[in-house]
């Protein structure tokens, strides 16, 4: 990953007028994607993420703002030059958008007609199908393929022009979890092997978590929070971001169950329900044992989860700590000194940090 910007969106506004109603789909958004990034844009439906990324290849012309891709001002290109620029920006879609009347090989070769000789085209198509692992389906039609296979064909087609950027617009949203993982793995591999810059639009933080190195969170047409993956996951600031992350790490679901049990737990004054969050190296220390040895504090783990994000472990524990009140204070201080974030939970809370 370099620091060379490949996509620069500045102050993008997209406004739709529909029957006297004005919709500000994207409001004054700036976004810079560097070469080699896998940049996730997360948000619920209607947040404006698809509209925003469609601005990158001008499928959606913005109402205001500037778009520079690969040093080219996309908004001031002639139609011919725009089409040439688009060949360097591949795109895949939620519903695959394959051509039903063409075979798989024909679909992949579609962008290459008039650009390569027949022989070179066939070789390239064979190579692309091999890359996405679908060589044996070359002469089938899209209707004969599963969703995951169709998306692989769409990826091969998007790569036919040797693009430097791949925009994935909810490409895994119509797929089951296992297929989603395999498609995400493929995108990651293409990023590594071809140096492909990927912009990944999704409403699933799980997808972002698996492959992205940077994230932007969108809500009502604005980017409300952005940063590298680990810092967003370890220190989310906006409630929406926290919500996405808690869903992805399944803490929300866990807490719901714990709260239901909480009355049964019957916590006394000497017991506290806390959430411990830790990033990186602090995951290595045998924390629970340390707390017992040093402060006589017993920790009962109700829920634990460790995510490995960009090779950095990110841990979440929900524990009941039992001990003398002053010892508990010391124990928490010890945790904080060790770089562990402590959140005191009360069974009546509905939200967690």
């Amino acid at each position, binding site marked *: 990953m370099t620091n060379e910007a490949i996509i620069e969106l500045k102050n993008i506004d997209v406004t739709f007028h529909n029957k006297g109603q004005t919709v500000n789909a994207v409001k004054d958004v700036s976004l810079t994607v560097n070469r080699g990034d896998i940049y996730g844009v997360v948000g619920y439906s209607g947040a404006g993420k698809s509209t925003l990324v469609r601005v990158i290849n001008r499928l959606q012309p913005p109402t205001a703002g500037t778009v520079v891709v690969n040093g080219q001002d996309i908004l001031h290109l002639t139609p011919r030059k725009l089409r040439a620029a688009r060949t360097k920006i*591949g795109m895949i879609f939620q519903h695959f*958008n394959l051509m039903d009347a063409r075979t798989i090989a024909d679909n992949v070769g579609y962008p290459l007609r008039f650009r390569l000789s027949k022989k070179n085209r066939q070789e390239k198509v064979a190579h692309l199908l091999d890359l996405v692992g679908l060589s044996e389906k070359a002469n089938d039609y899209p209707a004969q393929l599963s969703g995951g296979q169709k998306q692989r064909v769409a990826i091969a*087609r998007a790569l036919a022009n040797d693009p430097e950027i791949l925009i994935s617009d909810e490409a895994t949203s119509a797929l089951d979890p296992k297929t989603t993982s395999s498609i995400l793995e493929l995108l990651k591999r293409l990023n590594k092997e071809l140096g492909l810059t990927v912009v990944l639009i999704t409403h699933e933080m799980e997808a972002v978590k698996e492959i992205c190195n940077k994230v932007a969170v969108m809500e009502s047409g604005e980017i409300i929070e952005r940063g590298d993956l680990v810092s967003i996951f370890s220190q989310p600031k906006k409630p929406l971001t926290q919500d996405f992350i808690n869903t992805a790490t399944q803490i929300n679901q866990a807490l719901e169950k714990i709260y239901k049990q909480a009355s049964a737990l019957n916590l006394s004054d000497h017991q506290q329900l806390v959430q411990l969050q830790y990033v990186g190296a602090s995951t290595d220390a045998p924390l629970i044992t340390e707390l017992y040895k040093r402060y006589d504090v017993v920790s009962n783990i109700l829920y634990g989860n460790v995510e490995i994000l960009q090779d950095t472990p990110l841990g979440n524990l929900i524990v009941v700590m039992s001990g003398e009140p002053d010892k508990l204070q010391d124990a928490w201080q010890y945790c904080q000194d060790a770089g562990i974030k402590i959140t005191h939970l009360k069974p009546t809370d509905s939200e967690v940090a």
Partner: protein
Amino acid sequence: MSWFAKYFPNAVTMKSDFIQATGETLYMTLITAVVAGILGMIIGVGLIVTQPGGILENRIIYNIFDKIVNLCRSIPFVILLAVIAPLTRLIVGTAIGTTAAIVPLVIGSAPFYARQIQNALAEVDHGVIEAAESVGSGPMGIIFRVYLKEGLADIIRSSVLTLISLIDLTAMAGAIGGGGLGNLAINVGYSRFETDVTVLAMLIILVIVFAIQLVGDLLARRVDHTA
């Protein structure tokens, strides 16, 4: 063939008339199909690409095409035949005869075909158009390599429908001076109370219609890979 002579006593003596009339009907149908086919295709594609949200959105051109199609389709064909007789005379030199019938037939069927083409192409998924745009296809590439290719099965089905309705129109044009099987059925069979002539003319038309339907269905099935 004795049963034929028994049931078609008048028709059996008119072999050459039937051959000529069938030829005329096929001639009118074929020439009109080619001319109206090209015209209708151009207008239909024009409607699709210039419609709001189309790849070459153009409100003015769309409205012109749209109004012409609606206007032509609103005029009953029998009246159209009479109304455009001066135009026919201008183009063909006469308003009577098989060739003269082609002018009203084209005007009567091209707008219908244009609407059919528009409907067929409207079925092409907008996402596929977007995908083609995203790999750098221009308007011509999208028309010829996406719309006409992806819509082909529906275009064939629409063409069959149009051809069949065209044969219907040739019979009507024939009855008022255009020749062909319609002329035979009405001006000979009906007027002279030779019912068997009318029935035979009808049967021949039915055979032509079934043949077109059969071939069209086969072709459409061959190019349709959606299921």
